[in-house]
């Protein structure tokens, strides 16, 4: 399976790159002025003025960003009524999904567990974009809600190191075209 950049991941990477470059510019600017001779009292006066606003900006940004993230949690919610339940059992080194296929448009709740060690249920769409994941843990059932609008073969890779065959664990979840069974 060939992987592909997901829209969400691309956006995150671009944001990170922009911030990293901006920081690099700031550090370069400070470095450029490091060798100057400026009275420390003057630096402190300007610095404290900037720092208060920098603090206020970061606090505000944190509240907004973290608050928004709390409002957009990626977790399953509710009883799952109306969702097709798909049992996922991970083992060294395989995936067992039941049922292993649904029809397009189906809302699914994956119930994920492991029969041996920790694994990571990583779901990739037919184009190879990572669209969701949850851990597979022995003795527990983690849940992941997904709605499959598009038909195709969705791949499952292991996203939690589980032993010598970790990189070989690949499963398939098939979404059939609407109307087909």
């Amino acid at each position, binding site marked *: 399976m060939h*992987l592909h950049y997901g829209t969400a991941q691309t956006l995150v990477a671009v*944001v990170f790159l922009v911030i*990293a470059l901006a920081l690099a510019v700031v550090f370069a600017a400070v470095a450029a002025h490091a060798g100057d001779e400026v009275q420390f009292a003057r630096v402190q006066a300007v*610095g404290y003025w900037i720092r208060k606003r920098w603090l206020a900006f970061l606090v505000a940004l944190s509240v907004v960003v*973290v608050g928004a993230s709390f409002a957009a949690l990626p*977790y399953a919610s509710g009883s799952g009524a109306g969702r097709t339940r798909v049992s996922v059992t991970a083992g060294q080194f395989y995936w067992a999904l039941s049922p292993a296929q649904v029809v397009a448009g189906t809302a699914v709740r994956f119930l994920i567990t492991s029969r041996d060690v920790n694994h990571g249920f990583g779901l990739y769409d037919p184009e190879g974009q990572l669209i969701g994941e949850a851990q597979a843990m022995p003795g527990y059932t983690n849940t992941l809600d997904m709605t499959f609008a598009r038909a195709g073969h969705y791949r499952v890779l292991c996203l939690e190191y589980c032993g010598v065959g970790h990189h070989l664990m690949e499963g398939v979840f098939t979404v059939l075209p609407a109307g087909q069974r």
Partner: protein
Amino acid sequence: MSARESGTDRNIAGLVALTGLALFAVMGIAGLVMRLAQANVLEVSPTWFYPLLTLHGVGMITGALLSGMGALWFVLRTDVALSVGRMIAAYVAILLGTAAVLVATVIGGFAAAWTFLWPLPFDAAGQWSTWATVVFLVGVLLVGVGFLIYCIDVLEQITRAFGGMSRTLGVDYLRGRDPSPPPPQILAGVVVAMAGIAASAAGTTILVALMVYSFDRGAHIDALWAKNLTYFYGHTVANLTIYLIIGALYVLLPRYTGRPWKTTAPIVVGWLLTLIFVLTVYSHHLYMDTVQPRVLEYISSASSDASAIPAAVVTIFSAMMLIWGSGYRWTLTSGLVYLGFAGWTIGGVGAVIDSLMPVNSRLHNTLWVPGHFHTYLLMGVMFWVFAFIAYLLEAAAGRPARTLSAWVALGLMVIGGYGLSAMWFAAGALGVPRRYAVQPPGTTGYSLAASIFTMIFAVGFLVMLAEFWTLAAAGLSQRRMTGVLDPWPMSRENWLAFRQRLALLDRERFGREPSVAPAGERAPDPAPGPALERARARRSVALAGLVVAIVTYPPIYGSAENDLTIHHLIHAGQFLAGGLFGLALGSLAPVSRRMRGGGGDALALVLAIAAPAAMLFAMAPRIYGPLEHHAVLHAAYHLGMGILGLLAGLGCARFGRVAGWFVLLAAVSMALLWAPGVIGA
């Protein structure tokens, strides 16, 4: 002649830091091998790749930890009577632990990753044997014990020198009751020590639980519980490698800026918040476990994001203010210090982004994760470690490193290091899983590019090492074995201002004998007091122990019907009762006198560390189970719990009031942690 003047401090700190550097170099080779394997340049079978991965993770963190410990120890020794014996004991324990991990992975083929997530260490799919698992666990435990000894000493000696928690954490200063607060490296030391002891409690509990399983397959370990403890331990220790070396930067950076880094209200608040955050962030490793209590995820997410604020607003911003317009001279040391701030900042942003739950659902356990932690650990922490070593060597040689060597080394390491991280970030955004011996089709190009960047970094690193060698040779030839930074013999036209600054700093910091008792201007206490110096305190604590004993000892008959978790909590109470008695007993003058000196100190450490661990082992179902139906044996077992507590309390009494109580409570917490996680089949 003081320890500083004889060079003991520098020699010990240098040895510890250089050992960490050597570990880094060896683990770096392992890292390069892995990248080349993933690039299909080298043929490395998965049966070798994954043990290497395991070794690399543990070894790198241990190397960074060791170097940071040495650096902070060196700067703290100016004002705090840290123990040479305990530093050596910690060093030896960590070396032995590292050797054990090496044996377990390279010879035993142990490959459960540094996370040793239960039950993988015992579900090897035929790749390694139980002996390798046990040796690995012992190794990691020894590394943890070494760090614990160090933390106990730092907490004990700082609080003896500067006063109680409210002074050493700067709270008195915030409340206007302390006109001369401790220097910022003291705050760093206290926070590291407290967090380190807390992490050790959790780490010891999970490690002992796994060791119990190795001989008692009837023990059922809860997988979620194990994951929580493992990540609390591992994340916190890795996080503390940053704060250890930052403590040293408070002294190192002023050397080059001519501006002292003093304790201010923002620094105090920053460290108080950091102490809270460092202990509450770990659950971001469990975002993809939906069974994890949601409240922990909320707390962790808020903490992970908020933890960036003290760093960005206090530490990094203050450093930039100190550097701006300071006439900063670019040497190998000063360059490494500066670049380290950039690495920490950029890597930190990558981490904070990943700590948002919606983002994490697309990046969790992809290569984004090694991307961000390699950035702040390699380009941040390790650059600062290099800086500390460069600082010691430049002082020994009496001159800075050669400019060309410095620029070549720094340039190559910057290009190589950020290139390496960038490849991980890019592959992570693509969705490439981490810890894959064989990369998904079409992605080996990232590994190939990363390998090239690693080699560029390695060349820069070797250039730096060559310069270290030159400086060391110059230092040895000049026999400059002092622990004090001598003014460098620099040419007037290039270094005049710099020399003036150094002289100023030397007068401020080294022009007088270090005072180890700024609090109340007390002279250093040659006979350090026990935890409970007053008779009234001893009586109160003993009485409290009696009350706890009364509450927890009687439920012996019919105990078989009790819930096992409740029963283990009762054991924790029995241990606590004994611990309180031990603390009071150990604080009595005749007992306290016997615990002074090297032998007594070693005994105290052994008791405080071994007794709680023994208590956990004794709660193995195989040991405990058969006793449940024998009233007398059961009663004796409970008494044994109390005796182990007594021994732990005796040891803790030696550490003084603050460290003594803190370590005892950490020990009791181990039993509380054990209760819900380890039960019989």
